[in-house]
């Protein structure tokens, strides 16, 4: 089995190599088959693991990555329940998106097509490494690897400078987080001498509380980068510059959930640091609300989805912060389904609209893109949290935990839920209802996507509907939540102390609010009207001016500092100092020449004077 496990990441890697090196020589079909096939096989192996139950918390050791003195970092995988779950999500959703891509990217040139698939495969490889690693270093390798792939894919259309800027931004913001991650790892090494999960979690007790708080906060900094939380979230909406399947896979379903995975994985540490947990919860809730408000006013179909993703990720952090690790993981899973679905659906729309992304120029697509519409609707319902769609269960678990933890956070969660329902349906209505607002050419072109795109949509839609049943809460089933039970060896499930009646009340409240929001959206956006500009609306449309804020507070000062350092400190300071010594010597040479007046009398006088000085020194000063 170990060899098979090794194959899981290795296959996409091989796919990456073949597609990458052979992109000029292979046909598009072959590239697609290799790209999808490798991920499919990985998925199958993951399924085998899952069904065989061949997971355990004992790491599988392959070789020593680094061994120097006391520093030992094995290259090892840990295939336990948590990683198995993620394996399934990554390879499963990943496979679907690969399939989808073969069609979506079909118009690309062959070598770029190959490049695309090689990046995608590399991403899957990195992501698998991230979740399979048995220590933080391997996780970090995957962590940065996915960041790289994200960078490469966002900048996939490299001729466009804006896209490249977005790619750079994504990578750099991720890097800021990565620094936190790295420092946490060093901290672990400094205190425990190891970064292996098993050893770290077994020795949490040996860490002082300040150590734990430090480590967990730093890890969380890493998570805010990768999972787009305040203050490092701004890269994610920009990342929509990449091809839509990439947004679906990387910026919705998998990569951005790495932060959640990491914290869930480190639950032993976080549970020991209540302070950090509170921070995580507050940041999560704040992000959820902030992103949701921004999403209200966005007109780019992918931007809305992107902010929605940020908001949902905020939910997950809220869950993590309140100790509901399972709920967070659960939401990761359901979110992967419906958000991938929504993105792919939007891709289908964009595909149909020949690349148009602005929803103000869409409308009335309901009848023309039937499959897309229905699947998109399912996705919207799921994300809005209407029972019994998957989003309901996972979101409810989170809200429940928040309620238990802190009423204020719960309130924010609730508001966010309402906003979520509202903006998602706003999107749906504007896009699919009303009259067609595109130009004539687009009107002719509009058509339903081919099967390679619609089949994944349908599959994902199915999972969006039924995906929630793995985590039906105790209220409805006997024997508790299946998912929690499954994960319990790795992730402790939160114990609820809430009356079942209260729980049901809360559920109804959530659902009710969501439905009201949907109705408001229905009334407002059923037929498209130009939105009126209000001051607040403008703030929202401009994303609370956070990008501008960062620009003024961080980018520009640093750039300015660089300019000052370069133009003044370096050239007029240090360099001038060094050159000044040289100039001083030359100047001294020029001045000292005047001593050499050419007149014997002066020479002799100087000689006599110095003799005099020497005599005085010798006979009077020295004694």
């Amino acid at each position, binding site marked *: 089995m170990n060899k098979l496990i090794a194959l899981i990441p290795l296959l996409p890697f091989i796919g990456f190599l073949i597609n990458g090196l052979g992109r000029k020589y292979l046909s598009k079909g072959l590239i697609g088959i290799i790209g999808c096939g490798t991920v499919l096989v990985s998925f199958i192996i993951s399924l085998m693991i899952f069904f065989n139950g061949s997971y355990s918390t004992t790491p599988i050791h392959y070789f020593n990555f680094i061994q120097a003195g006391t520093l030992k970092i094995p290259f090892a995988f840990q295939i336990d329940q948590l990683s198995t779950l993620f394996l399934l999500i990554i390879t499963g959703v990943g496979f679907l998106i690969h399939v989808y891509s073969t069609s979506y990217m079909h118009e690309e040139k062959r070598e770029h097509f190959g490049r695309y698939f090689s990046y995608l495969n590399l991403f899957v490889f990195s992501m698998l490494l991230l979740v399979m690693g048995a220590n933080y270093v391997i996780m970090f390798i995957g962590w940065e690897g996915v960041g790289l792939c994200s960078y490469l894919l966002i900048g996939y259309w490299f001729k466009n400078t804006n896209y490249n800027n977005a790619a750079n931004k994504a990578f750099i913001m991720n890097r800021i987080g990565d620094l936190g991650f790295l420092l946490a790892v060093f901290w672990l090494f400094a205190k425990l001498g190891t970064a292996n999960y098993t050893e770290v979690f077994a020795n949490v007790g040996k860490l002082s509380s300040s150590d734990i708080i430090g480590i967990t906060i730093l890890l969380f900094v890493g998570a805010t980068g990768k999972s787009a939380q305040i203050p490092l979230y701004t890269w994610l909406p920009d990342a929509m510059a990449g091809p839509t399947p990439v947004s679906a896979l990387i910026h919705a379903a998998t990569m951005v959930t790495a932060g959640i995975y990491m914290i869930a994985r480190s639950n032993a540490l976080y549970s020991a640091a209540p302070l950090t947990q509170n921070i995580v919860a507050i940041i999560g809730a704040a992000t959820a609300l902030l992103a949701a408000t921004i999403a209200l006013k966005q007109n780019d179909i992918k931007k809305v989805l992107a902010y929605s993703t940020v908001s949902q990720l905020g939910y997950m952090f809220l869950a993590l912060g309140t100790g509901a690790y399972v709920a967070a993981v659960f939401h990761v899973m359901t979110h992967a389904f419906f958000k991938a679905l929504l993105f792919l659906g939007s891709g289908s729309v964009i595909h149909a609209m020949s690349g148009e992304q602005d929803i103000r120029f869409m409308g009335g697509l309901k009848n023309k893109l039937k499959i897309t519409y229905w699947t998109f609707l399912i996705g919207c319902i799921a994300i809005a949290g209407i029972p019994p769609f998957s989003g309901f269960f996972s979101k409810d678990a989170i809200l429940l935990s928040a309620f238990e933890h802190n009423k204020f956070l719960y309130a924010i969660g609730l508001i966010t839920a309402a906003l979520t329902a509202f903006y998602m349906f706003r999107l749906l209505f504007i896009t699919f209802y009303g009259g067609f607002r595109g130009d004539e050419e687009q009107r002719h072109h509009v058509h339903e996507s081919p099967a390679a795109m619609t089949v994944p949509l349908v599959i994902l839609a199915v999972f969006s509907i039924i995906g929630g049943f793995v985590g039906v809460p105790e209220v409805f089933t006997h024997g508790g939540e299946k998912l929690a039970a499954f994960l319990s060896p790795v992730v402790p499930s939160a114990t609820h102390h809430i009356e079942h009646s209260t729980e049901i009340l809360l559920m109804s409240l959530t659902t009710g609010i969501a439905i009201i929001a949907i109705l408001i959206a229905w009334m407002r956006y059923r037929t498209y009207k130009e939105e009126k500009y209000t001051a607040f609306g403008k703030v929202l449309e401009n994303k609370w001016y956070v990008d501008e804020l960062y620009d003024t507070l961080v980018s520009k000062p640093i750039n300015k500092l660089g300019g000052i350092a370069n133009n003044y400190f370096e050239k007029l300071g240090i360099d001038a100092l060094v050159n000044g010594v040289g100039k001083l010597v030359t100047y001294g040479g020029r001045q000292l*020449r005047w001593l050499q*007046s*050419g007149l*014997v*009398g002066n020479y*002799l006088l100087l000689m*006599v004077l110095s003799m005099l000085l020497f005599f005085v020194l010798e006979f009077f000063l020295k004694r």
Partner: protein
Amino acid sequence: MDIKYYIFLSIALFVIGIVGVLTRRNTIIIFMCIELMLNAVNLLLVSFSKMHHIANVAKDPLAGSDGQLFVFFIMVVAAAEVSVGLAIIVMMFRNTHSIDVNFLNRLKH
């Protein structure tokens, strides 16, 4: 007589020579001042030679004669130097019709 009077006298002559060298511009006079310096040295040597002779005459009847011989050698060298020096001065005068020591200052800095 106290030896220090001789020392003072010689030093005084020597310094007068130096001052002459410093203050004059006539090459020949400068040269003469240098000769005066040498003579001051000679005087000093002779007086020292006498001093050592008196101190050591019991051991060696010829003690201190080396000082006087040194004076002899100084005179020899001075003579040689004068011949060369005057030759140079004459050469300079032939070329520039001046014996001002500051006249020639092409070489400087």
